[in-house]
């Protein structure tokens, strides 16, 4: 290594070393102002990126293959949702109808609605299943029993699915580019805030409802005074005194209740 180089570097280093002292005079007169300004610029910019730009980038938007009118169909069938989304004898739930089911009514187009004609020509005639994008599709690790919720607990479809039956158009399906899951799982709100029971469908949301149900069950058997105090504890410490003890680890519901 040449001495020149060494010298240059040493100089540079010395310069660097001196800098703080050179900067010192700036302090106290406008320097702190500019520091504050740039701090705020950085803060606001990153907040915008995080809250606005990032969610836009995170989700891809996809259109359903057919713009389906739920409201129209619900009006025309007798048994509400279960007319098309029915239970099989073995207790399994059929979910999104297969083409064969649709064909029962739509072997030929019944109207001249362009979406129906598209459906008939592109799918029915070619006997091709419609690649519906399922808003409520849970990841594969989730076991969800419609029978337990709808038949046993007599819950409404709306509780989890929202008023999709009233929709006249299929909304845009948003898919998380990283996880491949529907945005409905995390919820529309990027902060995870929800107003309705169906706004979010993460594990915590299942757990919340299950805890409520369990608490209800537990409190039913309590004497009035006991129940009063227990309820105070329950409000103070959500999830406590729920009465469910099936899981040794969480004293909540055991993992296999909802996982497979």
């Amino acid at each position, binding site marked *: 290594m040449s001495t020149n180089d060494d010298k240059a570097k*040493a100089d540079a280093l010395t310069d660097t*070393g001196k800098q*703080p002292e050179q900067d010192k005079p700036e302090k106290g007169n406008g320097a702190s102002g500019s520091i504050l300004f740039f701090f705020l610029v950085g803060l606001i910019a990153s907040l915008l990126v995080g809250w606005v730009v990032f969610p836009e980038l995170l989700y891809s938007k996809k259109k359903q293959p057919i713009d389906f009118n739920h409201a129209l169909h619900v009006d025309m069938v007798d048994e509400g949702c279960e007319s098309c989304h029915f239970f099989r004898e073995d207790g399994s739930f059929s979910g999104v109808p297969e083409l064969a089911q649709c064909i029962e009514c739509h072997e030929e187009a019944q109207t001249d609605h362009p979406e129906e004609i598209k459906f008939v020509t592109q799918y029915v005639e070619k006997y091709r299943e419609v690649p519906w994008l399922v808003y409520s599709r849970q990841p594969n690790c989730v076991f969800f029993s419609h029978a337990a919720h709808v038949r046993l607990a007599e819950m409404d479809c709306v509780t989890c699915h929202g008023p999709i039956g009233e929709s006249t158009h299929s909304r845009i399906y948003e898919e998380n580019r990283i996880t491949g899951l529907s945005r409905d799982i995390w919820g529309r709100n990027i902060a995870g805030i929800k107003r309705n029971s169906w706004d979010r469908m993460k594990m915590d949301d299942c757990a919340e409802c299950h805890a409520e149900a369990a608490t209800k069950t537990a409190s039913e058997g309590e004497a009035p005074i006991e129940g009063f105090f227990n309820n105070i504890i329950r409000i103070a410490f959500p999830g406590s005194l729920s009465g469910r003890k099936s899981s040794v680890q969480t004293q909540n519901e055991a993992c296999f209740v909802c996982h497979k």
Partner: protein
Amino acid sequence: MDDALFPKGVKRCPLPEFLMKLGPVVALLIWGVVAMLMCWIKGLNQTNMNDAYGFAAWIWADLTVIALGGGAFFTGFLRYLIGKEKLKNIINFAVLIGFICYSSALLILAIDIGQPLRGWFIFWHANVHSMLTEVAFCLTCYFGVLTIEYLPLVLENRQIDRVPFFHNLTHHMHEVMPLFAATGAFLSFFHQGSLGGVAGVLFGRPFAFREGLFIWPWTFFLFTWSAAAYGPCFTIMLAKITEKVTGKRLIKDDVYDLLAKIAGWMMATYIVAKIIDTWYWATVTAPARGMTFMQFYSNNPLYGIWILILEIVIGGVIPAAILLTRKGRNTPFALMTAVVLGVIGVCVNRWVMVLQTLAVPVLPFEGWPMYYPSWQEVATTLLPVAYGIILVAFSYRYLPVFPQEAELNPIVSEPAAPPAPAPDTDAEPADAELSPAQA
């Protein structure tokens, strides 16, 4: 060249020579990084671990570096809470070693888990009954403490220290350092112990299982104790090696002597406890499960009774005996022998608690599975060594790690240097604010 960055009053070799000497270490580092990336990208099939050896070289390395890094918390404990002021001269180095050990441990853990992207579940979905949760929490927190303890040393770099903010920050951090040290000691007592608990609670593994106190098996306390005993040995060993490499005396003998003496006492008491524990296990705990002592040490190609002798006698009794005698402590060769044997002893102990625990067949119709690490495991285990050497080298070069260095190695040729105090005095170094002791 880069002398503006050197601590005051010390001499360092030219930069090219420094970098060149680090060359091989950097090569080792790169090898380790390649192996690490392979493990992350291709998965743990790159290792020789298997279903019988869910824990292997890495977990051993983890347990070992944390035990060896125990010098940091114990020296800190002695310095800040017991008030052994003399140890301020080695505390910086102890903290540096601790920082390296703990960051390495975390890195190895991040490689060791099958799903690194979900590693944070241990914090978010913690099972507080698991010893591993306790380990992870305390480890992470204590690593934070070590970072806080190491930070002032970095900020005391001659150039950084010129920045008023950093200078002030250093000052105030020294002010509250006992608080941090206390927190660190508290955390350490727990996680060192919970690492012992990791094996001790396995009631399905009669080799490791121990009874204990409340939720903690005896291994919990033995691990804390042994870390306190052997950690300082490691600090002394590395300090001595650093002295050898730099060709300078960096710490005064009385500091070594004090630390070695304390380590000796810790080791002696530990080894007595360990012998009692082993005895009780061999005569009560294991037979209650139908197993005899020799069942754990026979019918296999590796684990004989020798390993117990190596751990307890050669790695425990002998070094403890050396360290307890003044002569032993003050004879450089004896001291070095003792600390090296001690380090070997604790390494063997951690190996046994991880690997032999898994090797001993528990189902009566199974045999001893044997294991040797794959090169990827070796490389990733050596990665922290390389990284540690590099960090020590840079820290030594640019940071005032050894407060006594300038005093012990006066620069005579440069008149510009501050006047060197007489080597035989116990006076404080001239620029005292560089030492944490001042705080």
